[in-house]
């Protein structure tokens, strides 16, 4: 009797989210798989099933490969740079201060820096895009203005207009945007490390870098792993910044999968082709995430 009542409650609670999830998340995915084998242009309910032709075209589409390649470079560089920088900053803010009265503490002004680093994360991505577009403006921008001010008037790169620079300029913005959040995340992890462990290490004569690599990093490994997964997702997406700042240009040098998909669907009216792209990206994402979770699995350290 009680058992049945319990079940009813469970079903009652689960039904609503499950139905919402099915209708708004799962069903569009399934639909995308179907649309991917059609030539749907997105306007009428009429279309033909064309089998795997979209996929065949996709594999011969150099822009798609370029976009996917950019995503992969982002996938490696974005987590690496962001986590590296965030770890460094978090360590400086929490554990790198001078050994005054034997207490582990951050550098002077740590609270202030923490707010400053977190600030970009509070801004909307659209504002960040517009802000950096102006900073990168080759003629009136802050960056080239700074170069002129320090006497480098002859070095005036066209940051977002140069095929060799644009991608890295976009990457820098993504890092700038994200790093503050991960500083806070790692700070939380660092705070959870018992001070006695660190002090013991220092007493045993460990240098700062030894403390960092031997004590700190292993003890906040779970946080780093979480950060890597989140940054991986951001790297496979990167849609908003690319759309606002470069539109994939110049000459597709900042093209990413999500934006190319969007262009095909909404600018070129090729929903079938775009869906095929979505399916391929889905598979790639799935494979990569499975790989990431497996590759970063480690023994959990209890403390």
């Amino acid at each position, binding site marked *: 009797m009680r058992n049945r009542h319990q079940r009813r409650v469970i079903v009652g609670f689960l039904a609503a989210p499950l139905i919402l999830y099915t209708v708004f998340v799962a069903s569009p995915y399934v639909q995308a798989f179907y649309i991917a084998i059609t030539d749907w242009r997105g306007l009428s309910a009429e279309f033909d099933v064309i089998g795997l032709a979209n996929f065949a075209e996709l594999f011969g589409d150099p822009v798609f490969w370029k976009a996917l390649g950019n995503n992969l470079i982002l996938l490696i560089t974005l987590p690496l740079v962001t986590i590296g920088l965030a770890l460094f900053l978090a360590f400086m803010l929490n554990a790198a201060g001078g050994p005054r009265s034997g207490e582990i503490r951050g550098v002077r002004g740590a609270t202030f820096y923490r707010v400053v680093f977190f600030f970009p994360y509070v801004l909307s991505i659209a504002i960040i895009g517009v802000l950096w577009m102006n900073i990168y403006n080759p003629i009136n921008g802050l960056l080239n203005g700074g170069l002129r001010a320090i006497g480098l008037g002859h070095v005036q790169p066209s940051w977002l207009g140069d095929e060799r620079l644009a991608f890295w300029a976009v990457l820098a913005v993504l890092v700038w945007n994200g790093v503050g959040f991960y500083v806070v995340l790692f700070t939380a992890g660092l705070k959870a490390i018992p001070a006695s462990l660190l002090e013991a290490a220092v007493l045993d004569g460990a240098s700062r870098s030894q403390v960092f690599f031997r004590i700190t990093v292993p003890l906040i490994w779970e946080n780093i792993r979480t950060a890597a997964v989140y940054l991986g997702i951001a790297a496979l*997406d990167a849609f908003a910044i690319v759309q606002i700042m470069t539109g994939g240009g110049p000459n597709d040098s900042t093209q990413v999968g999500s934006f190319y998909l969007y262009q095909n669907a909404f600018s070129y009216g090729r929903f079938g082709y775009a869906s095929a792209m979505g399916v391929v990206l889905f598979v790639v994402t799935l494979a990569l995430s499975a790989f990431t979770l497996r590759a970063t699995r480690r023994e959990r350290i209890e403390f």
Partner: protein
Amino acid sequence: MHDRPSQPQPTRRSVLAFLALSPVAGALAAGCATSGGKQAPAASPTGRAVAGNPFGVAAGTPVEVVLFDGGYGQAYIKLPVELYQKKHPKTEVKQTSTQQIQQTLQPRFVAGNPPDVVNNSGSNAIDYGALVGDKALLSLAPLLDAPSWSDPAVPVRDTLRPGVVEVGTHDGQFVVLNYSYGAYGAWYSASLFEEKGWTYPQTWDDYLGLCDKMATAGIAPWTYPGQFPYYMFWWLASMIYKVAGKEVIDKINNFEKDAWTDERAVAALKAFEAIPTNGWVLKGSSGLNHTDAQMQFLQGKAGFVPGGSWLEKEMGDSVPAGFDMSICRVPSITDADDRPFGALCAKAGEPYIVPRDAANSAGGLEFLRAMLSNEGGSNFIAQAGALSSNRNATLPADAKHGLVSINDALKEAGDNIFGLTVDTRNSRLWNDIAKVMGRFMNGDVKADQLAKEAQRLTDAARN
């Protein structure tokens, strides 16, 4: 599809769960957008066609008009609404506007209840290839043959400027009415020329000489919006038209063989190649957007900027007083140019369509007829600051310098006018060729490579 940042990373387990769900989801999907066949279009409630009411608009049937909320503003639509309501009293004209035409209206096209008139314009317009491919548009041929609003003795067709019908024709059917009319190419400042004692060059050699003088005077001859390289399309095509004529432009528009690689087309591109080769493009242009580039031009840092009729209005108060913006005409490039000096890229723009499935398509046609009245056209020129595709519409007394210069240039050009339709016929090809033009402006690509690559893209689009 994969652009939601908050989307949880799927794991092996969640995928299995997801696959287990799919039959349910599939059944649900069947009820969604991609299901079912096409419903038959609802019959338009029409009355009898009589004199003064050529499409047989039924009294009291509302008309829905969706305007693009762009550079031309919305004020100009008020007069046609009034005209319509005066002729058809007690009829509601529901007029809304949006910048997101595609996002707002696409679901309504799919559902079979689109508005009666759509101003399908802007960067979020619905792709014309898709609209035509899906036969979603009503033929506007009856509009051409209907008596014009202002003079019933003259059919609407004869009130239109050259090329309006051609540009609006897709797959042999006139389906898009472009309401504005503009010239494209590049701009210069007549007052700057006067101040420096320069005259507008008649030949390409003089043009290059002028660029040299500009560079010496510390003014970069050209700038362009590197973030939107398609701005170069119209000027480069104008040069091709000047040398090679209509035949080659038609080939370009129709995705034919030997269009860009026609030797006269290559000669025109080669002539322009001197600009990037001599370093006569403002440094940093490749990283500018259109307003940045236009500001450089208005501040006198660059002599020429690509663009069209809209530029003067777009820059508004940023145009310095007495700047005297004027449209460029292509100088004579070879001794045997196909077209005379003054040939111009001009085209009707600001597209209006009547969806095939519109509930009141007769009302839609009638509304377009009201828009094309002489009052409607002159009102558009005054309100929107652009010419109208009605050739009888008049300029207001306080028309700006750029607008007057276009009007004069159109008169001078006469029939030596061409338009490009690559953008509306295949927006992807347009973008892809524009990317190469961007590289051409950077100096990364030479004229013959540009021609070859543009031809390769064109060939691929044809097949």
